[in-house]
Each structure stands twice: as structure tokens, then as C-alpha cells.
């Protein structure tokens, strides 16, 4: 190994000042970008989803498809995606100051659809599909003590099952309740945004089966992706923007009562 004085100083200083991992990353940082994964360049994608509440008919096919596609345990509380029904009673003209309490239900995570439920006259009701928001600055990845969960360079939050300890910090940290501990492996589990599908040019299982296109997967780094038009033509909102999580599920028609 032949080093001139300058090279020796640069690399020696980098070694002394950076951790081992950062030393290995240094050449890539200097080049300005991560290299390609074979067949899929994760530096060229930034995944997000557009969810149109005004189109969701509560059929629950997405929940079923997710369970099947990703081999998720069948119980409702182990769900990578689920659908909630909100029923919001009207403001009482006799007592307009009274607090309005929405009624939220999700029978079997919405997998079997929603039987009609008696409501107070004048209530409004709608369905809200929920899943991991694949936050750009996710609280769940920040609390992991072993670096087993992370937001990848393509914007997908994943779990490294071989290093997850099952400590449940991330389950607590997720403000959207999107994580659970898989009872079979005792490791954290969550929506992968069907990473095995989207990296092969397919859409997610939930988007594939959605009969009304209420869910649309989009790649924000692709200028030709229809999601750009959807975001332009709708007034969208994300869940809990006050938490600055950088959530990437863009909801159209999101009511303020939805948490």
C-alpha cells in the first residue's frame, strides 16, 4: 500500500475521527451517492402512498390481501394494515359547545367488511385505511437500540428481523400504532410497503386489490408517476403533522377527527 503524505493524513484523520462504520461509508459519501442494488437502484426511488378517503368503500380487501401476501398472523391485532370506520355525531344545536366524540370501530381490522351500524341521525361516517406512514423522520427507527429498524434510502421503513431483539421500544414509539410483535418470531413486525413487490415493478398487495383505487402507490422521485398529479389535484393531509414525522401517506378528504 503506497500512500503519499497527503493521502496518509486524509485517511488517517478520517480513521481517527470517524467510527469504523463511518470509515467504510466515507468513500461513498465522497462519491456523493449510494451504489446500485442489483436490478433495483434504491437511490432512485422515494415511495409514498396516496389514500383517498372519499373513495374508500370499506370492503376490506386490502386488509385481506395484506394478510395473505405477507403471511401476517390472522388475528386482528396483528395487522400491517387495517380499516377504521369513523362515525361522527352531529353538533347538537341545543348545546353546540358539547364535545363531539367520534365512534371508531374496526371489526376484525376491517378484513370482513363493515356491517351497517345504527347511527344517530345526522351523523357522518366514513372509512379510513391505516397502515405504516413510512415516515421520513420516523420516531420508531430513532428508538431502536440495535439498528434493527430503519428508514431505507428509498423511503421505506423496514425491520431487520435477524437483529431485532423484540424489545418493543419501536411499538411504543410509533404514533400511528402501526407496529406489533410477531408472536411467531418475537420480533417487531410492520408494513414493508410490499418491498418484495415494489422493488420488482409491482404495486403493493393492498393497492393491487383496491377496487376503487382509493389506495395508490407512488414514487415521488419519478417525475412521471401519477401520484404527482393526484397530489396536485387534491387537497391532501397527513396524519399527526404536528409530530413532524415526515409521514408519506397522503390522505385526501381527511377529517380533523381522525387520529
Amino acid at each position, binding site marked *: 500500500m503506497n500512500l503519499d503524505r497527503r493521502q496518509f493524513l486524509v485517511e488517517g484523520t478520517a480513521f481517527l475521527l470517524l*467510527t*469504523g*462504520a*463511518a470509515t*467504510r*461509508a466515507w468513500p*461513498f459519501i465522497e462519491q456523493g451517492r*449510494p451504489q446500485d*442494488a442489483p436490478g433495483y437502484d*434504491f437511490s432512485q426511488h422515494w415511495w409514498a402512498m396516496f389514500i383517498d378517503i*372519499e*373513495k*374508500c*368503500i*370499506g*370492503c*376490506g*380487501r386490502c386488509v385481506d*390481501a395484506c394478510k*395473505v*401476501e*405477507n403471511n401476517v398472523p390472522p388475528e386482528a391485532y396483528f395487522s400491517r394494515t387495517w380499516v377504521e*370506520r*369513523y*362515525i361522527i355525531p352531529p353538533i347538537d344545536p341545543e348545546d353546540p359547545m358539547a364535545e363531539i366524540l367520534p365512534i371508531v370501530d374496526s371489526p376484525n381490522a376491517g378484513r370482513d*367488511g*363493515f356491517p*351497517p*351500524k345504527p*347511527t344517530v341521525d345526522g*351523523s357522518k*361516517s*366514513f*372509512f379510513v385505511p391505516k397502515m405504516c406512514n413510512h415516515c421520513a423522520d420516523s420516531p420508531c*427507527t430513532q428508538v431502536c437500540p440495535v*439498528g*434493527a*429498524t*430503519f*428508514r*431505507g*434510502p428509498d423511503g421505506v421503513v*423496514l425491520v*431487520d*428481523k*435477524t*437483529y431485532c431483539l423484540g424489545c418493543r421500544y419501536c411499538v411504543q414509539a410509533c404514533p400511528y400504532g402501526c407496529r406489533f410483535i410477531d408472536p411467531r418470531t418475537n420480533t417487531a413486525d410492520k408494513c*414493508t410497503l410490499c*418491498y*418484495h*413487490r415494489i*422493488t420488482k415493478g*409491482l*404495486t403493493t*398487495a393492498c393497492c*393491487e*386489490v*383496491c*377496487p*376503487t383505487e382509493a389506495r395508490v402507490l407512488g414514487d415521488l422521485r419519478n417525475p412521471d408517476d401519477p401520484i404527482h398529479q393526484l397530489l396536485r389535484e387534491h387537497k391532501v393531509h397527513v396524519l399527526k403533522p404536528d409530530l413532524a414525522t415526515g409521514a408519506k401517506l397522503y390522505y385526501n378528504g381527511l377529517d380533523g377527527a381522525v387520529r
Partner: protein
Amino acid sequence: MAQVLSDAKHLVRLALLFLAGFLLFLVIRAFFVPPGFGEFGHFRTGTLQDVRNNTPLHFGGRASCGEADCHEDVTAALATDSHARVGCESCHGALAAHAADPEIAKAATLDELDLCSRCHALNPARPEGYTQQVDIEPHRDGAACSECHDAHEPSS
């Protein structure tokens, strides 16, 4: 001065001890930090490939149904009708295995009353304008949905 130098020997020993401890830390660290960790962030880069490659595909996608000599007649009829946006696997279930080998993996039989009701039963929470909603029981009057309707060509 001589006193100071002889005392400094202790410091040298201490420094050597620290150095040995630091080297031991580096050796242990090299064993425990998995390969590829930290390349693109605080995670093992191989996880991306693991998740990508180790999850089998169950839903083939609607494009896999309409290939020549398969169900191109159905997909063609569907494309011009009001169910055009409904994916095949939305009703028929996950069929990637069937698309790969039509002989061994037959499509599951459908519970059509359940499937149709999921979208078309009257429900106050359902938005209007995306599906035609009917009060299922009086509407069907004991008949099966497919006796009157063809889900592949609902408008005909």
C-alpha cells in the same frame, strides 16, 4: 525533574492500559458489527436484499391474468366495463401460483354473496358515486348474484 519523570512512568502504564482496552474494543466491535452495517445509515444494508428476496409473491397482479391463451377474453370484456378498475385478484384471491402453473393451483371458488355485498350492500359510511348500493336481501330475493349479474360485465 527526576522525581517527575519517575512518576510519569505510572502515566505511561495507564496510557498503555487504555490503549490495550481500546484495541480490545476495536477487535470485539469488528466481531459484533454485522457486515454492511452503516453503509447507507444506521442499519445493515443486506436487510434491503433480505426483505426483497425472502418474501414469496402471492398476488400476481392483474397483468399476469390477461396473457395470450389465458384469460384475455375476460380482461378485454372487463376493461370496457364499470368493473375495469377492479383487479382480478380483488375477488378471486391471490393467484400468483396459478399464473405460474395453471394446472396445479386452481383459483378458489368464490362466496359471491359475501364478495358482492362488501362493495354493494347499503352502508351509510360508504361514499356514494363509486359503487351502486342496494339493500341486498330484498334486492336478491333469494337468488344468487350471478343469476342476474355478470361480475365481468356488470353493465351488460
